[in-house]
């Protein structure tokens, strides 16, 4: 059976797993959903203070957008890593399309991200209002970026979840790589800051290379659509970043499909 029709046949399972993930995330804490907003907010404040100390001015609204978008990717990475291994008992004993598990993880984090996005919009609108600005009309194109971000996260979850079945110690390596990815992603700083630095050292090609990181493309695109003062760099580097993301998602998909039939033997 075709994987897509197989997933559609199991859509009730998918919906149930998404609800299960969301419920168990919000159930055990009094603040529940509030933590999903408070954590990135606290982080945004810390980065803002830190950057002020370094005497680099980055507008608060840029940091907010960057940190919230980063939060979605980071949560997908950490939940995605164990989404197959945590359900080992289920995988071993029940047949269902294995891709449901990474899909449910990516979707439940997306739901959480979309909910935080509402809060984020209110905050950004207030901050912009303070300097007499408002959210631009380009924001209607936001679903395209969210869809691209979702697919990229799905690729990451597909890759990590099946790699973790074979290498249970992957977590340690992933911790290091996520930190590295965080620093080469304009989450707590802006892309214009990168441009200033590469201009100062006369190596503009570095800005192109920087944009090969799909997360740099995604976060800069969010900012360009929401904030009136940010322009998306229409460069070969950014195009490369989009292609790299697409190639990665396809590769992860085929890797997952190839390995999934042996998952149950690994528990």
């Amino acid at each position, binding site marked *: 059976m075709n994987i897509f029709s197989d997933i559609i046949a199991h859509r*009730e399972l998918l919906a149930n797993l998404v609800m*299960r993930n969301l419920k*168990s995330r919000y159930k055990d804490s009094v603040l529940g959903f509030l933590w999903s907003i408070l954590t990135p907010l606290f982080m945004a404040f810390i980065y803002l203070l830190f950057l002020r100390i370094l005497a680099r001015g980055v507008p608060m609204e840029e940091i907010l957008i960057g940190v919230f978008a980063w939060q979605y990717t980071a949560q997908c990475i950490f939940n995605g890593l164990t989404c197959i291994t945590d359900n080992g008992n*289920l995988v071993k004993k*029940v047949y269902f399309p294995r891709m449901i598990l990474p899909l449910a993880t990516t979707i439940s984090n997306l739901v959480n991200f979309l909910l935080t996005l509402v809060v984020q919009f209110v905050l950004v609108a207030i901050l912009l209002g303070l300097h007499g600005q408002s959210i631009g009309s380009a924001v209607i194109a936001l679903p395209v970026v969210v869809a691209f971000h979702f697919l990229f996260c799905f690729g990451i979850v597909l890759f990590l979840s099946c790699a973790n079945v*074979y*290498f*249970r110690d992957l977590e340690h390596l992933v911790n290091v790589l996520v930190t590295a990815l965080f620093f080469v992603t304009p989450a707590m700083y802006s892309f214009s800051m990168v441009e200033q630095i590469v201009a100062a050292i006369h190596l503009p090609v570095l800005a192109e290379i920087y944009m090969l990181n799909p997360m740099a493309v995604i976060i800069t695109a969010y900012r360009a659509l929401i904030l009136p003062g940010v322009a998306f760099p229409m460069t070969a580097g950014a195009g490369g970043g989009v292609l790299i993301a697409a190639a990665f998602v396809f590769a992860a998909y085929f890797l997952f499909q190839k390995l999934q039939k042996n998952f149950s033997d690994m528990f």
Partner: protein
Amino acid sequence: MPSASVPLCLLIKMNAIEARNLSKSYRLQGSVAPTMFGSLARMFRHEPPKLLWAMDNVSFDVRRGETIGVIGPNGAGKSSLLSLIAKTTAPTSGSISAHGRVSSLLELGAGFHSELTGRENIFLNGAILGIPKATLARRFDDIVDFAGIREFLDMPVKFYSSGMYVRLGFAIAVEMDPDILLIDEVLAVGDTAFQIKCLARIRDFQRRGKTLVFVSHALQTVEEFCGRVFLIHKGKLVCEGKPAEVIFKYLKEYMGEGGGIHAVEYGSRDVEITGVRFINASGEEAGTFAMNEPFAVEVSYHAHKRVDRPVFGFAVKTGNGFFVYGSNTQIAGFHMDRIEGQGKIRLKINPLTLMQGNFFLSLSVHSWDHSVQYHRLEDWYPFVVKNSTQEQGIFRLNSEWEKV
């Protein structure tokens, strides 16, 4: 000819399950979870992976509506076979196909999420098993009553007892209404009342022409329910056929090997027990016996030296080690003068008052004063008793009613 397509279609779908040269190997990687460091270390040591063949070139057909019993010693590959039919694991080579909706009772409660309540888990587990939400909503009360968990419905399942867990799992699983039902030893759990409910459900499946594959160590249940039995040993399909014959072969040739409960043998061997034959009511050698009918055990011995007044003893235990009865020739007042060379004695039990289940017979021969144990075979010989009456229990009490 338009009508030709119908019989052809039926012909194709005659078999519910088809396996051709089915093989499955597992990599033995010890108890630790696979890691990157472990893989690198193995690569540098040029260690070939150790393989275990859980299924080794097995071919068979299961017809629609058949009930197949699968028996064999522990680790023979029975559960692997069910996993292959259920598609939870893929064959290493060969093929297996199941036509129709397969569901297995080997996953009882596997999809439960401990933080969610019983109510939430019914819907989650139902979705995992592919039961439409509408069906679950309609059958909700039946599921709850069958599992008997109504007062615990809104409690997280982590507070459930293991019995409640399994009962709820079973109640949901039977709502799947599959074409092929796989059952793996699940009926060993739960109290008698629940087991009777489960067996009734299974009979209901049979009546409706569903295909069943049944793995069990409860041999009398296998004999009672199955039309055909597969005997699996070390991943190979050793033999298949009528339940009584296959079970007998299993008891005689394979069960002793894996051992009974302890299956120990010791003694000075001055007198050796060389063979045992279980004889049924019609005087034939058998492995399965009917309750309340004559039962006999023929013991062959070889005395390597002259032994005066030897004592032969026997004991019977249930499959889970409960000691039922024991006696010997001395207690029974059967005196043997002396033995030397080969000989036979017969133990007659008439009627057999064991009710049903797997039992183990222990035999011993020792000196009249108990000072020398010549040969003792503890839990060595398995046999099966089946009960065709309505009476319940493990041992028959000679009982009657009267008006007072």
